[in-house]
C-alpha cells in the first residue's frame, strides 16, 4: 500500500542523525494532527466529568491530577471527577430514547440503501439493456438536488397524511418519515459504490454460474452478492453515519420529544436561562460512543470500500 517508502524498514546506513530527526518530525506531526483531530472530543469528555463549579472558571483546568515537585513528587488533585452530569443528562432528557431512535432510523436507512443500491448497482454495471443512460442520469441528477428543496413538499405531504392510514407509514413523528427521505438522499451514493465494485469483478463469474445452470437471478444471489460484502459494509457504514448525523429533516419531522433523534435532542438541549454545558457534554459524549466504536473498528473497511468507487469518476 505504501508508495512513498520513507522510514519503512530501517537499514544500517539509515541510522544517521538526519534520518532520526526526520522520523522524529514525522511522528511528531502525526501526533500533532491526531491531537488536533481528537481534542474536541477529549475536551467534551473532560468537561462531562467535571463538577459544575469547576466548569465555569477561567483559566480552565485540563487534567484532574497533576504531578508537582517540592522535594518529592506529589500527585495533586485539580478537581474531583464525577458522573453527576451523566446522571442529570439521563434524568432530564430521554437521552437513551434519542439514541434508540437514531439507531432505528440509521439502521433502517442503511438496510434499504444496501438492498436497493445493490440491485440497481448490479443492473447498471453488469447487465445489458436499453434506457441505461436515462436511469443513470436520474440517479446522478438526484444526487445534486439540495435537501432544502425536498423538505417543504415532503413536510406538507407528511402533514396531509396525518390521521389517515398513510400517516402511519409516512408522517410526522414516524420513523419511516425520516428513513424514506434519508434512503432516497443516499441512494445515488449507494448505487455508485455498488456499481463501481461490481464493475471490478471478472465477467467469468456470471458465465460460470450460467454454465452451471443457474438462472440470472440465481447468479445474482448465489454468486455476486456473497462476494460483495466489502461494498455492502462500506455502504452500510457510510449511510448509517449519514442518517445518524442528519439534522434538517430530523428537526422538522420529529416534533414529539420521544421521537427525536440524538442530534436534534442535543441541539435543543440548551436551557431556558443559560446552557448547562456539563450536562450537554455528558449527553454529547454518550452520543459519540457508537461513532467512536464505528470509526476505530471499521475505518479500514470504509477506505477499502471507497477505493473502487473513487478511481472511476
Amino acid at each position: 500500500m505504501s508508495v512513498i517508502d520513507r522510514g519503512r524498514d530501517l537499514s544500517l546506513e539509515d541510522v544517521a542523525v538526519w534520518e532520526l530527526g526526520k522520523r522524529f518530525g514525522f511522528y511528531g506531526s502525526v501526533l500533532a494532527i491526531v491531537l488536533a483531530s481528537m481534542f474536541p472530543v477529549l475536551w467534551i469528555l473532560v468537561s462531562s466529568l467535571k463538577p459544575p463549579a469547576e466548569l465555569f472558571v477561567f483559566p480552565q483546568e485540563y487534567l484532574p491530577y497533576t504531578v508537582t515537585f517540592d522535594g518529592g513528587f506529589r500527585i495533586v488533585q485539580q478537581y474531583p471527577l464525577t458522573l453527576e452530569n451523566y446522571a442529570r443528562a439521563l434524568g432530564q432528557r430521554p437521552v437513551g430514547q434519542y439514541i434508540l431512535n437514531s439507531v432505528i432510523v440509521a439502521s433502517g436507512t442503511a438496510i434499504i440503501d444496501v438492498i436497493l443500491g445493490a440491485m440497481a448497482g448490479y443492473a447498471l454495471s453488469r447487465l445489458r439493456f436499453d434506457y441505461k443512460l436515462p436511469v443513470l442520469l436520474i440517479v446522478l441528477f438526484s444526487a445534486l438536488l439540495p435537501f432544502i428543496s425536498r423538505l417543504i413538499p415532503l413536510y406538507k405531504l407528511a402533514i396531509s397524511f396525518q390521521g389517515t392510514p398513510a400517516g402511519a407509514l409516512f408522517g410526522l413523528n414516524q420513523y419511516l418519515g425520516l428513513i424514506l427521505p434519508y434512503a432516497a438522499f443516499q441512494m445515488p451514493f449507494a448505487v455508485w459504490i455498488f456499481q463501481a465494485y461490481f464493475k471490478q469483478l471478472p465477467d467469468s463469474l456470471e458465465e460460470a454460474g450460467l454454465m452451471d445452470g443457474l438462472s440470472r437471478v440465481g447468479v445474482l444471489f448465489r454468486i455476486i452478492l456473497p462476494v460483495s460484502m466489502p461494498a455492502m459494509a462500506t455502504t452500510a457504514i457510510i449511510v448509517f453515519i449519514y442518517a445518524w448525523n442528519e439534522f434538517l429533516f430530523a428537526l422538522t419531522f420529529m416534533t414529539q420529544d420521544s421521537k427525536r433523534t440524538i442530534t436534534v435532542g442535543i441541539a435543543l438541549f440548551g436551557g431556558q436561562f443559560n446552557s448547562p454545558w456539563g450536562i450537554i457534554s455528558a449527553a454529547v459524549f454518550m452520543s459519540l460512543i457508537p461513532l467512536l466504536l464505528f470509526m476505530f473498528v471499521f475505518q479500514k473497511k470504509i477506505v477499502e470500500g471507497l477505493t473502487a468507487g473513487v478511481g472511476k469518476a
Partner: protein
Amino acid sequence: MADSTAQIGETSRFGEESLQGRLRRYRELRLTEEELAVALLTPVVTFLLAVSFYPILDTVWASFHTGYVIQLPGQPQEFVWLENYAKLFSTGSFWNALFVSLFYTFVSVPIELVFGLALALLLQRDFKWKYFAQAAILFPWALPTVINAKIWAWMLDPNYGVISDLLVRVGILSQPFAFLSNPDIALYTMTFITIWKTTSFMTLIMLAGLSNIPEHLYESARMDGASKWRRFRDITLPLLKPTILVALIFRTLPAFQAFGLPFGLTGGGPGEATTTLVLYAQQAAYNNPGPTNGGFALGSAAATVITLLALVIALIYVGTLYEPEVR
C-alpha cells in the same frame, strides 16, 4: 433446465413466447438480462422519482404560488407570477445569506482539499500505529455536524472557552475572546470549524484515490531518477484528478447547503453574520407565517434558487475537470 436458460434471451426478444410460458418463467425466477434489469431498477427509480423528483417539482410550483405554513384543505393557492422571487430578491437578508454561503463554501473547500491531500499523503506511508492514527484523523468526518457545532460553541464560550484558554496560555490573547459574538469574526470562526471537520472527509476520499494509483509507476519513475516533487506532480496529481473531481463535488454541494453548523453554533448570528442560504430558507419557511407571500412561498422560492445554484456549481466542476476515460 439448462437448455431453457440458454434459449430465454432469444424467445423473449422475438416475442414468440406464449403468455403462459412467460408467466411460468417469471414464477420460477428465470429472467432474461433485460427483464432482470427492469426488475432490479424499477424500485430504485420509482423511489427516487417519488422522494426526490416530485418534491423538487412541487417546490418550483410552490415558488410561483401563494402559500401558508399550514395549508388548509380547499384553501386556494393563487398563481402570483414572480412575486415571491421579487420579494426574495428585494430583501437584504437573502443577499447577505448568499454572500455568507459563497464565502463559507469557496474559502473552506479549497483549503480542505489541500489539507486533505497532505494528510492522505502522510497517512499513506506505513508506520507504527498507522490505523489508530488514521481512525483518529478521520473521526471528525463521522462527528454529527450539529453536535460538532455544540462542542465548538462550548470550546469557544466567551467566558470559559478552552480555545481562549489555550491562546492565553501561549500568550496570543491576554483575556478570553468572544469568537462567536463578534460580527466581524463569527463567519471566519465558522469557516475555520468546518475546515477542521471536513478536512477529514477530503483525507478519506484522497486515501481511497491514492491507493488506486499503481505502485509500479512510482518505481519506474524512481529508476529514471525523478525527484519526489516530480513524482508527485507528474504521477500523483494527474492520476488523482478524477478523485479530486469527486471530492470537490461531494464537498462543495453540502458546504453550499450548510445548515446544522450555523444552527447549532450561532443560530445564524450575531445579527445575520453567519446565516447561510439554507438556514435563511428554513427560517423563511418555518418562522414566517405571513398571510400571502410568507412562509412556504418565500421558502420555496429560496429553495428553488438554491437548487439552481447547486446545479450551476456541479456543471462548472464537471465541465472543467471531467475527462472521459483517458486511461
